[in-house]
C-alpha cells in the first residue's frame, strides 16, 4: 500500500498537457465534482456515526442496566474499566485466542504463500482455488459445519475448539495476504547467498525471512483483528467459554455496562497508536 503511486506522482498531465486540465475546470463538471466529494464525505461521516456514539456512551451514567439511552456525563466508567471481571476475563480470552491462532495460521499460511510464489508445481492452481474456498462460504456455514464435526467426534467445545475454528478461517487470509506482498520479490538473492556458500538455514534466516517479514506482519495484524472480532463462528464452537464478542452478545440479553464502551474505545485508541508507531518505524526504515 505504501508503494501505491499518488495522482501527483503520475505523469498524467504530460499526455494531454495543462490546457486540458484548465479547460475541464471551466466546465459544468465542477458541480458534479462537488456533489461527488460531498457524497463521499457523507459516506465517511456515516461510517463514524456509531463510533462517535460508542465513545460518547463510554462517558454515560446509565440509570438502568442497559447503557443504551443518554442519562448524564460521568468519568466513573473510565476510572474503573475493569469493574466487571467477567468482561475483563472475556477480553483476556480473546487476546489469547488471537495470539495463539494467529501464531499457527501465520506459519501454515506463510509456507503455502512462499511455495505458491516461488515455484510452479503440478496442482498449484488447485491449491490456490482450495485456499479461496473457505472465504466464499458464509460464516454461519463454517461455524455450523465445525459444530457438526465436533459433535460427531464427541469433543467438548471450549477454548481448544475456538482456536481450531479461528485457525481454519485465518489460514486462507494469511496465505493470500502474504502471497500478494511477496509476489514481486527478487528470489535470486537466495541463490546468490547459497552460491556464496551460505548453508540453507542461514540463507533462510538472513535472506528469505527479512524479505517476507513485512508481508507476514501485515497478515498477522489482519489475522489477529479477524480473530478478535469474530462472533458467528466462535458462537457455534465456544461451549461455555466467553470471548469479548460473546460476552457482549450475552450482555445484550441481561445488562449492558458502559465498561463495554470504555474497553471498545480503549482498543480503538491502542490500535491507532500501534498503527502510528508502525508507520513511523516503516518511514524510518525507508529513509535510513
Amino acid at each position, binding site marked *: 500500500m505504501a508503494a501505491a503511486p*499518488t*495522482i*501527483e506522482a*503520475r505523469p498524467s498531465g504530460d499526455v*494531454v498537457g495543462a490546457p486540458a486540465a484548465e479547460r475541464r475546470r471551466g466546465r459544468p*463538471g465542477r458541480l*458534479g465534482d462537488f456533489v*461527488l*466529494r460531498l457524497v*463521499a464525505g457523507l*459516506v*465517511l461521516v456515516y*461510517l463514524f456515526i*456509531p*463510533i462517535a456514539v*460508542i465513545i460518547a*456512551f463510554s462517558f454515560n451514567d446509565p440509570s438502568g442496566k442497559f447503557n*443504551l*439511552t443518554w442519562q448524564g456525563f460521568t468519568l466513573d466508567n473510565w476510572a474503573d474499566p475493569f469493574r466487571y471481571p467477567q468482561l475483563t476475563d472475556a477480553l483476556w480470552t480473546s487476546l489469547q485466542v488471537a495470539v495463539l491462532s494467529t501464531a499457527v495460521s501465520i506459519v*501454515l*499460511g506463510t*509456507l*503455502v504463500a*512462499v*511455495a*505458491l510464489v516461488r*515455484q510452479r*508445481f503440478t496442482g498449484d492452481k488447485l491449491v490456490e482455488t482450495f485456499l479461496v*474456498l*473457505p472465504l*466464499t462460504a*458464509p*460464516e*454461519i*456455514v*463454517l461455524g*455450523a459445519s465445525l*459444530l*457438526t*464435526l465436533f459433535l460427531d467426534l464427541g469433543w467438548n467445545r471450549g477454548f481448544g475448539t475456538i482456536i481450531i*475454528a479461528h485457525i*481454519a478461517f485465518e*489460514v*486462507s487470509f494469511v496465505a493470500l495476504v502474504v502471497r500478494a506482498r511477496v509476489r514481486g520479490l527478487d528470489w*535470486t538473492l537466495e*541463490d546468490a547467498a547459497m*552460491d556464496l556458500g551460505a548453508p540453507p538455514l542461514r540463507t533462510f534466516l538472513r535472506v528469505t525471512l527479512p524479505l517476507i517479514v513485512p508481508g507476514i506482519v501485515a497478515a498477522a495484524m489482519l489475522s489477529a483483528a479477524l480473530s478478535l*472480532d469474530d*462472533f*458467528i463462528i466462535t*458462537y*457455534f464452537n465456544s461451549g461455555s467459554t466467553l470471548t469479548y*464478542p460473546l460476552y*457482549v*452478545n450475552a450482555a*445484550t440479553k441481561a445488562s*449492558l455496562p458502559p465498561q463495554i464502551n470504555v474497553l471498545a474505545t480503549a*482498543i*480503538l485508541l491502542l490500535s491507532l497508536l500501534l*498503527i502510528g508507531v508502525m508507520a513511523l518505524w516503516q518511514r524510518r526504515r525507508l529513509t535510513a
Partner: protein
Amino acid sequence: MAGVATSGRRRSRVGPYLLVAPALVYLVIFFLVPIWSLFRTSLSNNAGSVFLPELKFSWDWSNYGDALTDFRDQIVRSFWYAGVATLACLVMAYPLAYVIAFKSGRYKNVLLGLVILPFFVTFLVRTLAWKTILADDGWVVDALDTIGLLPREGRLLSTSWAVIGGLIYNFVPFMVLPLYVSLEKIDPALLEAARDLYSGSWRAFRKVVLPLSMPGLLAGSLLVFIPASGDFINADYLGSTQTRMIGNVVQQQFLVVKDYPAAAALSFLLMAIILVAVLAYTWALGTEELV
C-alpha cells in the same frame, strides 16, 4: 552463473509440496471434513429423543423439502435483504472509492485508513450503537417524523429498515476496498483521454471507468452479499420476529432447538442458493476475475 541457472533444479521436487502440506492437511480436516459432516447431518434422521438426539444417516432428502416449506419466508427475506443491502452499499461506496482513487491526492492513505478504522471496534458493539441511534425516542426518529418520512410502522427499530440499514453499515467497507483497488489501477491519462473523446464526464465514466472497475464491483458485491445473506446479528439486535433471516433460524435450530438435521439442511440450502446467485451474477457481469 551455472549455479543460478541450475538452482531451480537443485531443490528437490517434493519441496513445494512439503511447504503446502501442513496448511492443506489442516484445511482438509477442519474445513472439508466439517462440510462433509454437515452434509451427512442434513441427510440424517433423529432417531433418539429430544434430550438425547441420536442421528442416523439415511439419505433422507426430506429435510431439504421441509426446510424449504417451513422457512420459506426467512429464506426469501434473507436474499431480499442481502440484495437491497448490496445495491445500497454499491451506490454509497462507489463515490467514496472514486474520490479516494482519483481526487484525494496525498490524503489517499489517510482516507483508506478511515474506511478501515471502524473495524477496530467490535462489530457487535457497532451494531448495538445503531440500536441507540435508531431508538424510538432518539433524534433520528424525531427528525424523520417531523419531515413525514417515518415508515408506516411509526418507528425504525424492529423494522426491516433497521435490519437492512445495519447490514449496509456493517458491510460498506467491504465494497469500498475492492472498488478502490480496481479504480486505482486505471491510468488517469485514460480518464483525460476519455473526457476529450466523449466530451461529457458522465459518458466518459460510463464508457471507460465503469467497465474497468467491473472486477472490483464484482468482488465487492460478493464480499457484501455472501456475509449479509448469512448474517443473524443485525436481524437479532435491530429487528423483530418479523425480520428473522436464515441465519437466525440456523442459529436457533442448532443451538437452542438442537434439531441438527433441519439446521444442517438449511445451511446447505443457504450455501447452494448463494452459489447459484454468485454464478448468475458473475455470468451477467461477464467477468471471471475474482481474486
